[in-house]
């Protein structure tokens, strides 16, 4: 049977890997190509590379760097950041990237999702939704531009809309939990899983493999993505690229069915 995926998320800022906390305070982690080499050796399930500058500065993706990473990457790769038109999406897939992720551009114009899916297939189209809980209403709402712009959309409504438009996977990124290692927002992720019939991936808050297990126990088949968990070690957040070996990974992700 298909098993959950365990996915490192790497953030690019000025050509280097960084890690944020609640979408702020980027801390230098290392060189992207080198990190990919290490992950190759660890037989990682899948890798997500997000360029946090491309969204903010309205710049274009760094095609040379993406090509370098794609050439080195021995597992399926998803790239996001600055994809605003079909041509860019197709170029990136052409560089050897399995999936392209869009966020603000897709939210602003869902037809972009449709048009990209028509060219590369919906299995290669991912939408990333950054979510913050409204303190007053308790509503889980989607924000864009690294958590600075409010869309007003409730997450499951928007996710459904974008799946209808052609998205093959939805990534739910909890702004509140980002970098905190306080655990996934399991309720949030579960509500999205229940609302959709496409693959759903969670990111934001994973502090340990126990958190991953908790997510899988609550949501079943889900992608468990994490940033800090795979790039830091220990309470002082020393940089160490790490990932569980296949045996340990299976132990976390594969839940034996109860008779």
């Amino acid at each position, binding site marked *: 049977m298909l098993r959950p*995926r365990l996915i490192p998320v790497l953030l690019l800022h000025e050509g280097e890997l960084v890690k944020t906390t609640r979408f702020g305070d980027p801390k230098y982690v290392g060189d992207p190509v080198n990190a990919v080499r290490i992950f190759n050796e660890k037989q990682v*399930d899948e890798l997500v590379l997000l360029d946090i500058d491309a969204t903010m500065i309205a710049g274009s993706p760094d095609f040379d760097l993406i090509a370098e990473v794609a050439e080195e990457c*021995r597992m*399926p790769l998803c790239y996001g950041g600055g994809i605003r038109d079909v041509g860019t999406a197709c170029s990136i897939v*052409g560089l050897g990237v399995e*999936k392209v992720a869009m966020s603000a551009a897709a939210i602003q114009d869902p037809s972009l999702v449709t048009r990209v899916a028509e*060219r590369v297939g919906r*299995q290669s189209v991912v939408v990333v939704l950054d979510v913050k809980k409204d303190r007053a209403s308790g509503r889980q709402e989607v924000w864009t531009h690294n958590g600075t712009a409010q869309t007003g959309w409730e997450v499951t409504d928007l996710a459904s809309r974008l799946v209808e438009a052609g998205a093959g996977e939805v990534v739910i990124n909890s702004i509140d939990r980002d970098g905190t290692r306080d655990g996934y927002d399991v309720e949030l992720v579960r509500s999205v899983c229940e609302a959709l*019939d496409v*693959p759903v991936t969670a990111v934001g808050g994973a502090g340990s493999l126990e958190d991953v297990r908790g997510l899988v126990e609550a949501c079943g088949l889900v992608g468990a993505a994490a940033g800090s968990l795979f790039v830091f070690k220990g309470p002082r957040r020393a940089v160490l690229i790490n990932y569980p070996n296949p045996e340990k990974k299976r132990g976390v992700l594969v839940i034996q069915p109860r008779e």
Partner: protein
Amino acid sequence: MIGVLDYGSGNAGAIATIYAAEGIEHRRVRNVEDLAETKALVVPGVGAFDDVMGKLESAGLISPLREYVEAERKPVLGICLGMQILFDRSEEGSKSGFGWIPGRVERIRAEHGDSIRVPHMGWNAVTPVRRSKLLEGLPEKLEFYFLHSYHAVCDSPDAVIAVTHYGNDLACAVQLENVFGVQFHPEKGHQPGERLLTNFARLECSDPG
């Protein structure tokens, strides 16, 4: 020399990188002239059935590929969409496939109308059901990465060499004489994937096994 078809769909680069690392002589194939130099061909493919067949038509490769497979009897390995086009037709599109393996491509559905997440995305167990040189030397606990919404249904079970389970049992590796296909992505499959691609490269023309 192994050919890796490079026609605008699928990850020819990743396949070439693996052959380079294994020291296997290979080249990218973009046209008929390139094709003639090769003794076997890997056909990657991603996206949609009609789109992939359309790209092959535009590149003028349909007849040369027929000649290669049907007349010259050289081995061909289709990956993902590359496997689906080996069949007669697909629910996904209106164009015909090559029809080298009798059968059709259908949308992934769960048994008994249960719901199932589509696309099939991630690592799933692969179980060989028939001996094939393509699958030699692979670990017992075998899993590969899948990324697709449609799957091939062979008219004859003899063509199925491995299955995976997702909703139903799905044929995920097929072989009929010199024609091979895998629905999963060996080029993103760590060591087992490298072994599978190497197995294909090492096939003898006269004995595809």
